[in-house]
Each structure stands twice: as structure tokens, then as C-alpha cells.
């Protein structure tokens, strides 16, 4: 029992609730939410160290032992994600102070941001599959409001689609849970894993596994990503960055959890299916990323490619590929937040998101330009930066699993990623000053004031991750070890 495990969930929840009282005092709201996120980072770091030294930390809510009560389980995989979430949240919050605008701040932006964090951290930490559904809903409810927040026309249109598709997938989630419960009679993930091992994963259990695959693919944007480009380009920059960095990752986490802990007995069927979906996701994402001449659309399709890339590590299911997938997941959360924030800044100063109408920004904003350049090559996986080692291990793992075709697709897709972000860089920063409507002169440096610092922090972190791989390896290995051997997790949860 370790009560610290619940803190990453309760702290943002309490902060969000308290912030509602201070609706008119925006300074108080900013201060409290900043303090809360910083404390969240400290707590998750401490908890992660504890997990490293003492093994998986569990908390049985209300003192009811599993499989009867809800267990919160902090293993290394979950803690790495919670810590990264907290860091990304800090930077996006910092960015939003300068960019989100007074009307939105007065209408509960900061409480909603905290509730979103509650849902994300809760999804990572829970050890009960129905509880996972509930935290998914907490996260989604907050994201529904955030995506519509401000009420511009495009936001309202995209919110309709977003809510519709997520309601459908949540309903499917409940149906899948109902099937699972009627077959196995339990909802605790560790206990489920044992029951599936007993019953053997064929017939109905494979059907349920595929149902879960569909549900989480809809959430993660794995092949079923058709809702994603519209929804993620509608909200303001700070919100879009949080979405791109966190929301699809929760779906990916759920895929990893269910298909390494519960449904891992028939990889010839389920993991083969996942591999195909990952390959198609990478291809379709790459097509989208090179097709558009619009900064937002290019970045959004890069989110899709990354999902395919990470999930391919799950499909290969070797030690190297899982380590690579975890490393790439952490890297991707950080670098996607940085890219979306920088992309938002670029659109802000150019006054348009069309590449053809911008140009020459590097003359007036060199720092922004080079930060974007760093983020772009980190995304593509150029060696000294954080994207490299994850990709390397993923490719190694894929070759070990003899999935040469998909390895080839992933390498070519990396090339397309590089091409697509370099297209943004070269068109917007180099060349003649564009003839955009608000363009350059009038807005000048003032518009960027305070916006670059959070991006610089994120990119600095990406450099540190790339250079400090040695320091990160023990954590990644511990996380991948738990995923490869579910009995470590089961023993930690179901011990007397």
C-alpha cells in the first residue's frame, strides 16, 4: 500500500475543483494551476524513483483487496508516462498564459485543463479495466469542452464530429467490457490476465480482443484516424498541443496494456492484425503529411504516423522493439507538444497557416526558426536527438521479429516525416518575406514574447533525452520488462 500512487490523480482533480471558486481572479487561477503542475512533476518523479528501487507500487482504494476492489498500479511504464505528461502539461500551461486570451481564461480554461490531466494520469495508473473506461471518459469530457472552448465556427463543427465518434467508441468500449465480464466474471486487469490464461484465448476471447483493438484504435488514431485531422486542427494552439501530446498516447497506452497483459496468448492473430494496422497507419499518415501545404494539417498527419510507428513496436513484441516503442512514446509526447506549440507560434506571426503565403520568417525570428529546425530533425530521428534511439531499437526489434516489410515502411515513413517538416521549415523560414495578410512587419517580435521559453524547455528536454540515453536505459528496461513478462505485474497486484 502506498498512498502516493493516488496523488497524480487527486492533485489535478482537487486543483480543478478549487479553481472553479476563483473564476474572476485569473492571476490566482494561473498561480494555483502552475503550482499544482509543478508539484505533480515532483511527486511523479519521487514515485518513479520509488518504483525503480522497490518495484511496482500498488494502492488498493478503500482497502479492498483485488480482484474485489479497484487497484491503482504504478509500474515503470505508467510512471514514465505520468512524469512526461506532467512535464508536457507544464509547458503547455506556460504557453497558454501568453496565448489563450482573457475570455477563454474566464470561462474555466484552467479547471478543464486540470480535469484533462486527471483523466490522463488516471488512465495511466489504474489497474481496473472499468476504471480505465471511467478515466477515459473524464479525459474525453474535458477534451470535448476544450475543443469547443471559445465557440468559433470551425471549433463547433469539429466538436460535433469529435463527440460523435468518441461517443460511438465509448459505447463500443462498454459493450466490450460487458462481453469480457460475462465471459470471465472479473474486471481487475491482473485477475483478467490469469483468467484468460486459464480459459485459453480462442473463440469469443479473440473476438473481444478485436473489439478492444477497435475501441482503442479509435481513441489512439491507429488506422481508424479519420476523425483526427479535423479535430486536432480546430482548437487554439495550447489546447491542440495538449491533445496531440497526450490524448492519442492514452489510447496507445491502453493498447499496450491490454495486448501485453491480457490478450497476449494468440499473437499470430491479434498482433498480426495490429502490425497490418500499424503499417497502413504509417502509409496513410505519410501520404497526408506530404500532400498538404498547410502547417496544421502537416503536423496533424505527423501525429498519425507516430501512432503507427509506436504500435508497430507492440506488434513485434520483442524486448528491443518494446523498449524502442516506450522510448519513442516518451520522445513523441515531448516533441509533438513542442512542434505544435512552435507551429502555432509560426501561424501566429505569419497570420496564415498556408505555406505558400509565408516566407522569410528567419530574418525576424531566428530563435523560433532554429528551435523549429531542432524539433523537426528530432522528430525525424537524427542521431544526437531523442528520436534516434527509439527508432533504432524499434527497427532492431522489427528485424529480430523478421517483419522486414514493416521495418521498410517505417524507415521510408521517417523520410516522409523529415520531408514534410522540412517543407514547413524551408517554405516559412527561408526565402523572400511572404505576402501574408497580416504578415511580419505589424506584429513583429512582440507577438512571440514569452511563447518561445516553454518550447525551448521541451526541445532542451529532447536533447537531454538524446544525449542521456545511458541514464534513461534502466528505466526503459524496467518498463519493457514488465510488459514482456506479465507475471511481474500480476504478482505485484495479486500478492497477499
Amino acid at each position, binding site marked *: 500500500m502506498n498512498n502516493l500512487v493516488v496523488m497524480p490523480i*487527486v492533485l489535478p*482533480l*482537487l486543483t480543478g*475543483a*478549487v479553481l*472553479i471558486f476563483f473564476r474572476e481572479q485569473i492571476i490566482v487561477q494561473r498561480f494555483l494551476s502552475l503550482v499544482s503542475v509543478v508539484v505533480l512533476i515532483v511527486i511523479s518523479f519521487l514515485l518513479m524513483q520509488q518504483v525503480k528501487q522497490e518495484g511496482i507500487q500498488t494502492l*488498493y*482504494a478503500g*482497502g479492498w483487496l483485488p480482484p474485489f476492489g479497484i487497484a491503482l498500479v504504478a509500474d515503470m511504464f505508467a510512471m514514465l508516462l505520468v512524469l512526461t505528461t506532467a512535464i508536457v502539461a507544464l509547458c503547455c500551461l506556460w504557453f497558454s498564459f501568453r496565448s489563450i486570451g482573457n475570455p477563454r481564461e474566464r470561462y474555466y480554461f484552467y479547471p478543464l485543463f486540470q480535469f484533462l490531466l486527471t483523466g490522463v494520469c488516471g488512465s495511466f495508473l489504474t489497474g481496473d479495466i472499468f476504471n480505465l473506461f471511467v478515466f477515459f471518459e473524464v479525459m474525453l469530457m474535458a477534451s470535448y469542452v476544450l475543443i469547443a472552448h471559445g465557440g468559433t465556427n470551425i471549433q463547433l463543427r469539429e466538436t460535433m464530429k469529435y463527440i460523435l465518434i468518441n461517443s460511438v467508441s465509448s459505447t463500443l468500449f462498454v459493450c466490450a467490457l460487458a462481453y469480457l465480464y460475462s465471459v470471465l466474471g472479473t474486471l481487475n486487469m491482473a485477475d483478467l490476465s490469469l483468467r484468460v490464461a486459464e480459459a485459453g484465448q480462442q473463440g469469443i476471447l479473440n473476438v473481444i480482443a478485436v473489439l478492444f483493438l477497435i475501441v482503442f484504435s479509435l481513441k489512439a488514431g491507429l488506422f481508424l484516424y479519420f476523425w483526427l485531422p479535423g479535430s486536432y486542427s480546430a482548437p487554439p494552439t495550447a489546447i491542440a498541443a495538449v491533445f496531440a501530446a497526450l490524448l492519442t498516447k492514452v489510447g496507445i497506452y491502453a493498447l499496450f496494456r491490454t495486448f501485453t497483459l491480457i490478450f497476449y496468448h494468440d499473437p499470430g492473430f491479434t498482433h498480426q492484425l495490429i502490425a497490418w494496422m500499424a503499417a497502413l497507419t504509417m502509409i496513410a499518415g505519410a501520404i497526408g503529411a506530404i500532400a498538404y501545404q498547410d502547417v496544421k494539417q502537416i503536423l496533424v498527419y505527423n501525429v498519425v504516423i507516430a501512432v503507427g510507428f509506436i504500435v508497430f513496436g507492440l506488434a513485434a513484441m520483442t524486448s528491443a522493439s518494446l523498449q524502442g516503442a516506450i522510448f519513442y512514446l516518451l520522445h513523441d509526447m515531448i516533441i509533438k507538444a513542442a512542434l505544435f506549440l512552435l507551429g502555432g507560434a509560426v501561424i501566429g506571426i505569419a497570420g496564415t497557416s498556408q505555406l505558400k503565403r509565408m516566407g522569410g520568417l528567419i530574418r525576424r525570428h531566428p530563435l523560433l526558426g532554429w528551435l523549429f529546425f531542432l524539433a523537426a530533425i528530432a522528430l525525424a530521428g537524427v542521431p544526437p536527438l531523442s528520436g534516434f534511439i527509439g527508432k533504432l531499437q524499434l527497427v532492431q526489434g522489427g528485424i529480430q521479429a523478421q517483419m522486414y516489410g514493416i521495418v521498410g515502411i517505417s524507415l521510408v515513413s521517417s523520410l516522409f516525416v523529415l520531408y514534410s517538416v522540412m517543407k514547413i521549415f524551408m517554405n516559412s523560414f527561408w526565402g523572400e518575406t511572404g505576402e501574408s495578410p497580416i504578415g511580419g512587419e505589424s506584429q513583429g517580435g512582440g507577438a512571440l514574447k514569452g511563447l518561445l521559453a516553454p518550447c525551448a524547455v521541451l526541445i532542451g528536454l529532447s536533447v537531454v533525452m538524446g544525449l542521456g540515453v545511458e541514464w534513461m536505459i534502466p528505466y526503459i528496461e524496467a518498463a519493457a520488462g514488465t510488459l514482456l513478462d506479465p507475471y511481474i505485474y500480476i504478482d505485484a497486484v495479486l500478492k497477499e
Partner: protein
Amino acid sequence: MKVNDVILQTYTKAVAFIILIFSLYLFLAGHNQPGGGFIGGLMTSAALVLLYIAFDMKTVDNMIPIDFRKMVALGLTIAVFTGFGSFIFQVPFLTHSFGYFRLPLLGETELATAVMFDLGVYLTVVGGTMTIMLAIAEDDD
């Protein structure tokens, strides 16, 4: 055109109280019988909505000067804080406890800390429902 709804208003004055008492009963009965914070909260907001239907918004707002949005926040805060007791007593989060107390008038009564959590749910449900109702009602301009 203003219709004279004296029957509705007189009727409401009596019925709203009955519904309120019933919702309170449901709220307190939740531990051993059907009921609890959610249904109790919905019943209370039903009584409040009846008041809003029978009288106009300004009258009821003067009668019950509560900001329902803050009520949601209060409910959430109470529910979270019931969990924080576990940090003091060194037990798992949200562990609840109960005991028997001899109260004046009621005699031997079972008091449980789970009621505090339910109170949080109750306030959140009332606040949430009323916020939705009033936000839609105020929206006509």
C-alpha cells in the same frame, strides 16, 4: 400575455417541500435502501426546477441566492477531501469507517464517513443539473 397561474403557484408551494423532504430521505436512506447522493440530488433539482417553472427566474433567484457552479466545485472538493483523511490515518485512499453513536432525539444511530462522500455527490449533482437548466433558460437573448 401573462396567464394567471395561481393554482400552479399555490400547488407548488406545498409540493416543492414534499419533494425536497423526499429527496433528503432518499439521500440519507442510500446506505441500506435504494437511494443515495445521485438520485437524491436529482430529486432536489426536480423540486427547484418546479419552483422555476411556477415562478419566474428573478423571484426564485432572490429566494435561493446560490451560485450553482460553485456548488459543483464545493461538492467535488468535499468528495476529494473525504479521501484525504486516509493520509492522516495511514490507511489506503478512500478507506471509509463507521461507528454507532447515541444522539439526542435519534437514539443509537450508525454514522458512516461514506455519507460525506455522498454529500459531495449530492451537491455536484444538484449544482450540475441546475447549471445546465439555468444556462439553457438564460440563453434566449
